[in-house]
């Protein structure tokens, strides 16, 4: 590890930059929350920002960008299954021959 320390300095700098980005995004999402957008738009915005933040954490703190591809595939598989679960639940809610009794 000859050039290790300078390399690590850049690493540290990256981590702090990511921290800054995450903090800003947090503030943004809260601010948007106060704008009281219509529900649909609010969901899209909030979840997009959350996904962006999540991607930042995963890519940099969890080093996913430089990780083995196999890990990436594993996560994609998992996310795929999760999306299947979520979407089928949504479809199941609508595609149902019956009415909900409201009391």
């Amino acid at each position, binding site marked *: 590890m000859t050039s*290790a*320390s300078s390399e*690590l300095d850049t*690493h*540290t700098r990256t*981590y*702090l930059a*990511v*921290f800054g980005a*995450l*903090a800003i995004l*947090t*503030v943004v*999402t*809260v601010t*948007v*929350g106060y704008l009281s957008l219509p*529900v649909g738009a*609010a*969901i899209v915005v*909030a*979840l997009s*920002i*959350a996904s962006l*933040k*999540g991607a930042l*954490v*995963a890519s*940099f*703190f*969890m080093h996913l960008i430089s990780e*083995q591809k*196999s*890990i990436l595939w*594993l*996560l994609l*598989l*998992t*996310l795929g*299954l*999760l999306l299947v*679960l*979520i979407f089928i*639940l*949504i479809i*199941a*809610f609508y595609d149902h021959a019956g009415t*909900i009794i*409201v009391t």
Partner: protein
Amino acid sequence: METIPYTVTPREDTGLINAKLGIWLFLASEVMLFGGLFSAYIFLRLGAVSWPEGSSILNVPIGTFNTLVLIGSSVTMVLSWAALAEKRFDRFRLYLGLTMLLSLLFLVVKGFEYSEKFSHHLYPASSSFMAIYFTLTGLHALHIIGGLVVNGYLWGPGSKMWASDPERFTNRVEIAGLYWHFVDLVWIFLFPVLYLL
């Protein structure tokens, strides 16, 4: 043929050490665990006659503060690992200690939020929203506590390994970090879903 290979050096064809693969598999299952609860949230919300806006019940500034605390703890966590890679044990201790302090702070704030809800007679049984709120955040808090225990071990008794097997110790810290970032990541989704939407 006594010891288990690839605990420290990666296997050539997979490029991974055992623990790294293991933790990612574990995290995948955690994705499905929280994902199961998220999908329950969606299903219940779809079927609900009315659903309160999170900010009408929960305290957004406190939630925001806690989000920043947790993100901060993630940064110190990754820095503590970087310090080890730099072979600077004292800095590692400092950063990991900070991580633990921040996670304690998170828990204290969370406890404060809970007690505030209780004092307003809001319990899990009060509404579907409160039910999902307490279940999700409660489970998340348990994960924080779990992480705290692991980090505490690595900070204290576990750090003896630094002297005998530094590389392996660094790997351990990295693995603990991966878990910790995941807990942070879950919160990144919990926060908008519960507080803002």
